[in-house]
C-alpha cells in the first residue's frame, strides 16, 4: 500500500533510464533518404508521340537488359540532351508512363459480327485471313480500270485507309506502298484534319 504509487513511478523512471543505458536508442532515426528509383534502370531514348515538338523522352525499364529480366516501364522523363525540349515535358508527355502501362489497353484481336451487340475474340490468323478476303473481294467487285471516258485509271474507290497521327514515317511509307498498289484512292490521314 505504501509503496503503491511512488514505487511505480520510481521503477518506471529507473526502467526508462535503464533502457537508455542499455543502448536502446529512444531517439528515432532520422534522415532515411529515399533511394533514387531509377539509379540502375535501363534507359531507352524515344520521342514523345503526342504533339509535333518531338520532345526526347527517356523511358526507364526494370533491369539491365539481362536475359532473365522482362523489362517493364518504371518511369519516363525528358531527355536533357534533346536540343528542343532539353529535358522538359508537358503534362501529356510527363504522363507517358501511364500511356504505356495503361489498364485500358486493348490486348487481343476482337470482332464484332453483323447485328451483334458484343465483341468476340478472334485469333490473329483468322482475323488477317478474313480481312484479306474482304479486301480482295471488295477490290475485285469494284475495281475501275477505265473511267467513262475510256482513260486508264486502275483505281479502287470502295475502300479507304485512314492513318493516324503517331504512325512512323516508315509505317506511313509501308501503308502508301501497299495501299497504292491495291489501287486505293481514299488514303487519308490525321494530317488532313
Amino acid at each position, binding site marked *: 500500500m505504501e509503496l503503491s504509487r511512488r514505487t511505480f513511478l520510481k521503477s518506471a523512471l529507473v526502467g526508462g533510464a535503464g533502457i537508455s543505458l542499455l543502448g536502446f536508442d529512444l531517439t528515432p532515426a532520422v534522415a532515411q533518404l529515399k533511394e533514387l528509383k531509377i539509379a540502375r534502370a*535501363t534507359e*531507352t531514348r*524515344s520521342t514523345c508521340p*503526342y*504533339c*509535333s*515538338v*518531338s520532345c526526347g523522352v527517356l523511358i526507364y*525499364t526494370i533491369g539491365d537488359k539481362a536475359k532473365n529480366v522482362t*523489362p517493364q*516501364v518504371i518511369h519516363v522523363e525528358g531527355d536533357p540532351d534533346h*536540343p528542343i525540349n*532539353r529535358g*522538359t*515535358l*508537358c*503534362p*501529356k508527355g510527363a*504522363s507517358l508512363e501511364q500511356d*504505356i502501362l*495503361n489498364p*485500358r489497353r*486493348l*490486348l*487481343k484481336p476482337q*470482332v464484332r459480327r453483323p*447485328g451483334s451487340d458484343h465483341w468476340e475474340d478472334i485469333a490473329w490468323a483468322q482475323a*488477317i485471313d*478474313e*480481312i*484479306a478476303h*474482304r479486301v*480482295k473481294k471488295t477490290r*475485285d467487285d*469494284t475495281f475501275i480500270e477505265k*473511267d467513262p471516258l475510256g482513260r*486508264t*485509271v486502275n483505281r479502287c474507290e*470502295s*475502300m479507304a485507309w*485512314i492513318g493516324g*497521327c*503517331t*504512325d*512512323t*514515317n*516508315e*509505317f506511313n*511509307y*509501308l*501503308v502508301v*506502298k501497299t495501299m497504292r498498289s*491495291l489501287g486505293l484512292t*481514299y*488514303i*487519308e*490521314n*490525321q494530317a*488532313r*484534319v
Partner: protein
Amino acid sequence: MTNGWIDIKNTDMMLIMGGNPAENHPCGFKWAMEAKRNRNAKLIVVDPRYTRTASTSDLFLQIRAGSDIAFLGGVLHYAIENNRVAKEYLANYTNAAFVVKEGFKLPEDGLYSGFDAASQTYDRSSWNYEEGNDAGGAAPSHAATPAAAAPGAPPPLPGMPPKVAYDFTLQHPRCVFQLLKQQYSRYTPEMVERITGIPKDQFLKAADLFTSVRKDGDMKRVATIIYAVGWTQHTFGTQIIRTAAMLQLLLGNIGRAGGGVNALRGHSNIQGATDMAGVFDSLPGYLKVPAPTDVDLATWLKRITPTASKPAPWDSFNYYSNTPKFAVSYLKTFFGDAAKKENDFAFHYMPKVDRNYSWTQLWDNMYRGSVKGMLAFGMNGVAIGPDSQKNIDALKKADFLVVGEIYPDETSEFWKSPGITPEEMKTINTTVYRLPCAGFAEKDGSFTNSARWLQWKNAAVPPPGDCRLDQDIVAQIFLKVRELYQKEGGKFPDPILNLTWPYVDAQHPALADLAKEVNGKALADLTDPKTQVTIKKGQQLPGFAWLKDDGTTSCGNWIYSGSWTEAGNLLARRGTDDPSGLGIYQNWGWSWPANRRVLYNRASCDPSGKPWDATRRQVWWNEDAQLWVGNDVPDFKPDSHPKDHMGPFIMTAEGVGRLFAPLGLFADGPFPEHYEPIESPVENALHPKQSNNPVVKKLKTAADKYATPGDGFNIICTTYRLTEHYHYWTKNNQMNVQLIPEPFVEIPVELAAELGIKGNDKVKVTSARSYYVAKAFVTKRIRPMTIDGKKVYQIGIPIHQGYRGIQEDEGKDARTILNRLTPTVIDPNAFTPEFKGFLVKLEKA
C-alpha cells in the same frame, strides 16, 4: 515551319494567331519565352479567347473567330501605308515587281476575274504574269525573284511565261506590289474593327508593334508568325496562312533566323505523314498524283515539272525541274524490276486521281454507300468528325471496318454509340475487326516534327498481351491479299504481285529496312561527272542530288534522301553541338531537305550575299571559296554567285517569294480576301453579296445541315485543345483525366448572366447538326464583341471527350463528342474542315 522550334529564340517579335502553343506545344513554346527573356522580344497574341498563351503576351487582342484575313490584311495595309516594308528584300526576293496580266481583276465585289457561278470555280488563266521585259524604269542594281510556297506545296501548273514582264521600281499599275497595295487599301483600321471586332486603337497598337521591326528601314530585327489549326480549319484557311506569308515577305522575315511563317503541327508525325503522302492528293515528297489525263509517264512528268518563269535579268534555280528523277526513282522503288523504261516504269500501276478523295468526301461517300470498307489505324474518325453523327451513320452502311488501336475508341464502337437501341444494333451489319496495336514505346522508327526534323526512336518494351506491331499487321494483311491474288487471280493483280518486298523477314518488315528503302540506293554503279565520286550498285545514296530518271536509282521519298546513307542512320544522330548559338544543331537527327534547318535561308542575306544581321549569321557568300557557306546548309545552289541574282526561293519556278500566287496554285484567288465562315452571324462587310468563299461547296446529303443567324443560331462557337489533354487519347489516362476530369463549355460572364447560367451548371449547345451537353465554365477570358455594330458572343469547347474514356464509358450516355456540332464544309485548297467558328444556340440543360 519554315524555321524551327529552337529558332524562335532568335526572334524580336512574335505574332501568335490561330494557335495556342503555350497549351498545345508547351515544350516548343519555351523558345518564345527564351526570346522574351534574352532578347526582350515582344509577343502579340490574337485569339478568340484569352488563352494561356495570351497570359504571357505583351499585347492580347480578342478577335472574332474566322476574321483573321481581315486582321492580317489590315496589318499589310498598315505596313505599306507607314512604309514599314523591307524594300530591298521585297524588290529582289519577291514577285512584287512582276507585272500581272491584263484582265486580272481584284475582288472588290468578292470575286476575282474568271468566276463561273454555275460550277463555283474560277477560270484562272487571267491570274498570271504578263510575258515581257522591263515594263517600268531601270532595274535596281541587284535584281531578285519571287515565291512563298509553304514547304511541301505542289509545284505550279505549267503555263507561266518563261520571261515575265517586270518593273523593278514597283510603280507599274499592274505590278504585283501595286495590286497588293490596292487589294488591301480596303482593309482600313475601321474596316478591321467592323469585321474582327477589335477596336481600332487596339488594332493600331498591334499593327504598329508588329511592323516596328521595320521601323526606319531597319533590316536587322526579325519578326515571326506562329500559327496552328486555328488558321487552317476554315473555309479560307490556306488563304489566312498565305496572308501571313505575304506579310512576312513584305517585312523581309522569311528565310531569316527568328523569322518565317511557322505552322505548329498538332501531332507527332503528321508532318511525316504529309511528307510520306498519307493523303490522297500527293505521292511521297509532294509529287502530284497522276490523273487520268496523264496518259503516260511523259505526260505526267511534263504536267508536274515546272519550268522557270522569271524576269530576264534574273536567274531561277527551279529545283522542281528535277521532278522526273524523283518520280522515276519512286516508281523503281515500288515496282523494282517490273518498272522498266519500256513500260514507262510501271506508271500504269499507279491509280489515277481526278477528283477530291479527301477526308470529308470519304465519309460522304461512305454515307452515300459507295465506300464499303475502311481500315483505320490509330485514327478515330468518329471523334474527329466533322459531324460525328454523320460518320457514325456512314459506318453503319459499310461492310467492314478494321480498326488498329491501342485503346477502345469511338470509331470501333460506333455500333454501340449513345442513342443506338438494341433493336437498331441488330440492323447494323458492319463487321468490325479491332486489332490491338503497339504503342509508341514498343516500336522504333522515325517521326518528323513540325520543324522537319526526322528523329529515330527506340523501342523500350515489347508490346503487351497479344498486341502486334502495326507494320507487321499491315504486312501480314497485304501478303495474305497477295497470296490470294497469286492463287486465285483477280482484277489487275500486277501492281500487287510486282510490289517490291525486299524485307528480311517478310511478315515482320523492320522499320530500319523501310527507312533505308525510303532513302534510296544505287541500282547501278553511278559516277558524279564533276567530282568523279562513284557509288557502287546497291549502296545507299548520299542524297537526292544523285537521283536519276533512267531507272538507275531507287528512292521512296526524295525529300528524305540523305537520311540513311552509307554513313548509317542519320536520323539517330545525337550531336549536341551548336557552334553558332542559333539553335541549328546540324548533327542532331536529320532535317529535310538535305539537313537544312531554316528554309529559304539564302534570304537571310542581302542581294550581295551578306547577312542582314551580322549577329545572326546563318549562311553567307564566301567570295574566296566562291561558295555559299554557313552554319546551316545553304538552301540554295551552292555556287550561284550573288551577281547572277538567282532567286532565294529555289523551290518556286520564279525563284522568288510569291506575293501574288499565279494560276492554279490556289482555288480561290491569287491574293487572300476576307470571306465569312460558312456559318457566320454577320454579312461580309467588304461585299455583303459575296459573304462566303465563292468556291466553297457545301455537301448535300440529308446529314449536311448549315445554320444561319436567322434560325436562332447566333453564338459563335470555336473548338480547341487543352494543355492537359492530347486529342482523343489521354481520356484513357488517369493522370490527365485527373487534371481536367470533365468536359466543359467556356462561356463569357455576360452571356452566362443573360441566360441565367452559373459556373458548373449543365448546358446544352446545339448546332444545325446536333447537340452537346457539358458543364459551364463561366469565364472573364472571353468578352462580348461588337461586330459591325452588332453584339456577338463567342463560346469555346475543348475537343477531348467522347463516349469512350475513363469518364465517358458505356452506361454514361456521354453526348460529348464535340464534333457532333461541327459542319462538313472544307477549305478549297487543303480540304480541311471548318472546325473553327460555326454557329450554335446555348441553353441551360
